[in-house]
């Protein structure tokens, strides 16, 4: 589904990603770990196509198509969707109105989705204005439910979410990824950034990657990687130097 080749990305004058290779096949979910500031969000924002993230080398292929310089909305229309870590507040734009716009002609069950995310009370509120950390994340998942992407990216979906809502987040993202379906029928893929690994309790991830200083240093079983990091910290991944 997604193939990234030797991707180098600059923000302003500074190169943040120094040659990333990554392949995610249909139906697979990958998790991305790594210390703060290592470039995880940068990778997701670049895949989505945000303007500040300038690709200087390499390319991004989506279902075989080179999307490296495609506008954001076209990528979204191809089926790429993202749960943001810190989405902007938009004054005057009601969450409900955005959901209708995202749904386009298709009238999905917006009230039903909102209820399932405990967000019915937020449809008439300005998007992200005064939302708590957990509310922002629930609103993001709700938007993705309406958007129905084939490739789901999630940037720290558990951070700021209280214990009560973490299973709601986990289970909802699992549904977005068709985790209730058998692997052979599953078409949706995901790339999820996590620090804590809580999300792994809800989403069976197929592969894990560790990003350090703009490079992916280590691939493997996500739970094993998480355990190593928990016990020995990221320096162990650095020592691993798999690539």
């Amino acid at each position: 589904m997604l193939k990234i080749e030797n991707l180098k990305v600059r923000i302003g004058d500074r190169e943040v990603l120094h040659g990333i290779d990554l392949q995610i096949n249909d139906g697979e979910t990958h998790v991305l770990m790594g210390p703060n500031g290592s470039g995880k969000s940068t990778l997701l924002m670049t895949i989505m196509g945000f303007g500040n993230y300038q690709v200087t080398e390499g390319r991004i292929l989506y279902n075989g198509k080179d999307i490296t310089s495609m506008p954001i909305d076209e990528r979204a229309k191809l089926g790429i969707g993202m749960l943001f870590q810190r989405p902007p507040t938009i004054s005057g734009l009601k969450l409900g109105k955005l959901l209708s716009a995202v749904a386009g002609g298709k009238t999905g069950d917006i009230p039903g989705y909102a209820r399932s995310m405990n967000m019915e009370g937020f449809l008439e509120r300005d998007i992200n204005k005064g939302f708590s950390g957990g509310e922002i994340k629930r609103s993001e998942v709700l938007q993705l439910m309406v958007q129905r992407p084939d490739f789901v990216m999630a940037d720290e979906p558990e951070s700021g979410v209280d214990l009560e809502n973490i299973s709601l987040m986990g289970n909802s993202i699992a549904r977005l990824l068709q985790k209730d379906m058998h692997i052979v029928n599953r078409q949706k893929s995901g790339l999820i950034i996590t620090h804590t690994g809580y999300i792994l309790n809800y989403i069976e991830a197929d592969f894990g990657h560790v990003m350090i200083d703009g490079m992916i240093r280590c691939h493997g079983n996500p739970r094993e990687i998480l355990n190593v990091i928990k016990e020995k910290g990221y320096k162990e991944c650095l020592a691993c130097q798999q690539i």
Partner: protein
Amino acid sequence: MPADMNEFYTLPETEQERLTQTGLDVSMENRCGSFFQMDQKILQTTCSAQGVEVLAIEDALEKYDWMADRYWNAVKRDKDKYTKFVAKQEHPKGVVVIAHKGTRAVFPVQACLYLSAEPVQTVHNIMIAEEGAELHVISGCASASGAKRGSHLGITEFYVGKNARLTSTMIHNWNPHISVYPRSAAIVEENGVFISNYVCMHPVARVQMNPEAILAENATARFSSIVIAHEGSHLDLGSRAVLQGKGSSAELVTRAITKGGTVISRGYIAGVTDETRGHIECRGLILTDGTIHAIPEIDGRVTGTELSHEAAVGKIARDEIEYLMSRGLSEEEATATIIRGFLDVKIEGLPPVLQKQIDAAIDASEAGY
């Protein structure tokens, strides 16, 4: 006075549409009264609500002796050359709306002022909500789309009695050759509420106004302006509130967009008594190089007043546009959606039909961003 709307129907359909956009509801379905003035000719004065009167100003002055005390009282006749010009009209035109003591009108009264051919239209309105009354007025002002030049001079005096509530919603739909000089002022008595809304989304040569509210004890005023300055438009808008009575409060809110024109947004609140509160908020969006000049003034005189202002001018944040694009909206859709949100000012205490009218006036111009 002739009460004849046939002339409205003789107008070309496009003109009828322009008037409808300013809030004219010919069916009267959601209106309790109506006044229609074309140039200097009064075509309609009608009212169906008990306790509410809609009168041509000459008739009102004749009917009620006390009207003389309300005529050129809130607005002074020698305020400037425009008031002087209106004051010297032998036959004043305009409308007087009176909601008598305790009357609560559910539906608004519409006042429609249409400049079709004459170079100058003068209007003198008096809006009165007597003690305990509730009155909503929607004034739509428009000019013929082909008018090559013209001025509209409109005086409006608002009187809000004790415990009364008066809302005034004014929607303008001029054209690039018209200059507009509204002169209005409100006197708000104890516990009275005055809400004034102004919407101008279409090109106009010049609008200049600075309405004022004088507030007695526990009275409240809220002015909201939602405007777009197109290239060649010069909008010098302000509002003023004098917190004269203990416990009074005022809020002045502006959303201004420039597409190459000029908006000067003045706000002035004076806190001269204890337990008063005032806030000025101006947000400007520059879509095309132009001018948005916010001049908020807060003038506190006593320890017991709390006044504040916030103003911000800038362009649409790129990250907001990109956020919406990541949800599948095109750049144009994303931009329009954000602008629509920017202009969305929900006005507390406004009846739903009027909020809808404001929303519709903004939506109608959406294509024009």
